[in-house]
């Protein structure tokens, strides 16, 4: 009886070991991005932007041209690339500290500009790279090294729902929040990432997929426990789903009388 290969490493995923901690979702999402690139046939014309965060070394992990951006500035860097190479496919891959803290202005404005780029946003509710400080997405009550008594809204403020925040803008064309906690959700995530890239390839404009992710190291749980924590805590606070699609995107308004 012969066997056929039904799953293998995508071509756009460079064949090197990653530095991620065991069980970290970054690895899964990397592969999904690579699969989307392969399936859409754009590996030859894709330029990726790596953030500062655990994914900083992502420049080694995709076999496409890569640019490492300053902390939080990936959307600006991607804008610079896309504006001078409008026919190439440009994406950023950013964590929640990178995108939702220091990089708030850059992501909001890239979205408001309907900049024709794709953003893969890894929300693991902490700063993984610097080993576990509060992120803008940290849940109330969640213990981190900078919220040793748990995040307290009085002192540390409220978690930010990035997808909903950007949904308050006219600019974005595709916005979705997903997770990779089950094979089913993983497939939804894969479709969302593909849809986001498609938006860009069709010239429709700004797309972002927020992936709720685990951080075994900073959460202090083993990878399997992390899945449960994510399901019991992150998903309830950050509802999954597509919140903006090209069809539902506000049309360009009629121009006002100049001055």
């Amino acid at each position, binding site marked *: *009886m012969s*066997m056929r290969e039904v799953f*293998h490493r995508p071509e756009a995923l460079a064949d090197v*070991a990653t530095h991620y901690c065991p069980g*970290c979702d970054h690895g*899964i999402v990397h592969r999904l991005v690579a699969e989307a690139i392969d399936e859409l046939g754009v590996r030859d014309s894709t330029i990726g932007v790596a953030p500062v965060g655990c994914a900083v070394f992502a420049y080694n992990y995709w076999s496409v041209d890569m640019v490492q951006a300053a902390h939080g500035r990936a959307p600006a860097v991607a804008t610079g690339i896309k504006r001078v190479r409008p026919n190439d496919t440009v994406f950023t891959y950013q964590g929640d500290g990178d995108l939702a803290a220091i990089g708030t202005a850059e992501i909001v404005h890239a979205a408001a500009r309907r900049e024709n780029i794709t953003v893969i946003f890894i929300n693991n509710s902490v700063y993984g790279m610097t080993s576990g400080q509060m992120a803008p997405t940290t849940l109330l009550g969640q213990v981190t090294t900078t919220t040793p008594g748990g995040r307290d809204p009085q002192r540390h403020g409220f978690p930010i729902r990035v997808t909903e925040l950007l949904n308050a803008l006219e600019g974005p064309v595709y916005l979705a929040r997903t997770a*990779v906690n089950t094979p089913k959700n*993983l497939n939804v995530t894969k479709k969302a990432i593909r849809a986001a890239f498609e938006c860009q390839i069709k010239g429709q404009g700004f797309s972002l997929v927020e992936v709720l992710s685990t951080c075994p190291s900073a959460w202090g749980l083993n990878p399997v426990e992390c899945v449960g924590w994510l399901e019991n805590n992150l998903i309830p606070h950050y509802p999954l789903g597509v919140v903006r699609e090209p069809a539902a995107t506000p049309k360009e308004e009629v121009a006002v009388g100049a001055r």
Partner: protein
Amino acid sequence: MARGTVDIREERCKGCELCVHYCPSHCLELSCGFNAMGHHPVELVKPEKCTGCAICGWMCPDCVFTVYKEAR
């Protein structure tokens, strides 16, 4: 007879056990040995039960698996 099987790139496995957790057929387990990175790599301990469903491949953060399924 097994309806599928997997190739495991041991040296890339970080022993996170996610595949063990998700494999619907419970045919994976961590081995006792260490790989070069110091982790206990996963093993296909019940090859006969493997259906080639590829879930292990999907859920592995380190792309350790190549999955094969019975061709019809």
